[in-house]
């Protein structure tokens, strides 16, 4: 029979754990709100810049001297994978889901005989990827000190990527992050940054935009505008990815901690039941001892 003191101790420790998980859940909920807000407020800029990009793209596609950032350098031998994960753990399968997707990609690319290089954004992904692909990691960026992601953080990462591209370190760049669907669903997602993927989804608007393009004035030259706009567009995409990722992380942590709190509650109930049963058993045993002692006299 387990002794009472031991049971009590376990109860106390589970209760303490529950307190922590509940607090973490609440903190995550508050942070999630903030993260969602900032993701929301970044959206207008991103959508505006993609309109401007679309305008530019359709007017430039005929010329052969399109910037490399947009059309690529014609090769696809070396891939750079930028993997955005969290810096902290205890957020369910969030980090491992992203890493799983990345690992799949790495294996596939290697099978095709491509070279793979990795930039890790976030400590947890770095720790996980390092186990199997340490030699491929060329950079590791931690955002641990950053409370809420500012554009300048994304800018630094974007400039880093562009500098490496201009240096000829890779041909194709993809960004991996978790896109935020809802609190309970975050989907790991790959997005190509270089060369710029040209999506033909919005064919419906095409004639409309085409007509306005023909008469666009550029100041300064079109190629100069392009040169400035492309890295900016890349930075914005990184920024959006990071914001989504931050929201996903908090969402994932919130539901993980909600589960943990519930499990702790169940455990406490079980332990309480066991504790009471044991206590009653001990009392009964003592009574029997007293009664049988009295009877013996």
């Amino acid at each position, binding site marked *: 029979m387990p002794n009472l003191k031991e049971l009590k101790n376990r109860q106390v420790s589970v209760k303490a754990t529950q307190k922590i998980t509940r607090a973490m859940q609440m903190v995550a909920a508050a942070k999630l709100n903030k993260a969602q807000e900032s993701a929301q407020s970044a959206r207008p800029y991103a959508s505006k810049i993609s309109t401007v990009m679309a305008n530019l793209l359709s007017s430039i596609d005929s010329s052969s001297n399109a910037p490399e950032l947009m059309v690529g350098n014609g090769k696809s031998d070396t891939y750079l994978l930028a993997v955005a994960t969290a810096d902290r753990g205890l957020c369910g399968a969030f980090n491992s889901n992203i890493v799983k997707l990345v690992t799949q990609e790495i294996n596939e690319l290697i099978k095709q005989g491509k070279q793979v290089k990795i930039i890790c954004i976030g400590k947890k992904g770095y720790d996980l990827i390092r186990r199997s692909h340490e030699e491929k990691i060329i950079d590791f960026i931690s955002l641990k000190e950053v409370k809420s992601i500012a554009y300048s953080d994304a800018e630094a990462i974007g400039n880093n990527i562009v500098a490496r591209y201009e240096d000829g370190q890779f041909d194709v760049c993809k960004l991996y992050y978790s896109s935020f669907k809802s609190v309970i669903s975050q989907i790991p997602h790959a997005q190509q940054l270089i060369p710029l993927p040209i999506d033909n989804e919005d064919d419906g608007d095409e004639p409309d935009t085409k007509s*306005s393009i023909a008469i*666009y004035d550029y100041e300064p030259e079109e190629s100069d505008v392009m040169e400035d706009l492309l890295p900016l567009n890349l930075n914005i995409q990184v920024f959006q990815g990071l914001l989504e990722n931050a929201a996903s992380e908090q969402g994932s942590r919130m539901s993980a901690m909600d589960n943990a709190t519930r499990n702790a509650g169940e455990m406490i109930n079980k332990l309480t039941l066991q504790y009471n049963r044991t206590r009653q058993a001990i009392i009964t045993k003592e009574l029997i001892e007293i009664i049988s002692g009295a009877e013996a006299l």
Partner: protein
Amino acid sequence: MGKLRLDFVTPERLLYSNDVEQVIVPGSEGEFTILSDHSPIISSLKPGYIKIYEDLSNEPTIYFVTDGFVDMASNQLTILAQSAIEKSQLTTKNLEDIVNSYQGEADNTENEAKKNKLNLKIDAVKALQAEA
């Protein structure tokens, strides 16, 4: 006079969205004014003030921007700025910091074209400093 639709956005948020009469922007080739039904134009910006006249009879709202783009098409003006500070909150220290960060970048880069661009920006900010 007709109005045009202005959306003024930074990566962090939508700063200003309203119908306005006139906007003066610091284009990289010189300051210019945009009224309603301006012809389609895409221009990059240099450091300077964006003056937004909601109503020509009233004082404009003024923002300081370091760089960015304007896109004008079918009476819809979009200003994309990396960062914007309202003029009333702009201090000489802000300007100094900006000059220093550009200077640092210019010193670090080997790329001549980039260096020239940064120097142009530094000149623009210094001109504003002299003004203030």
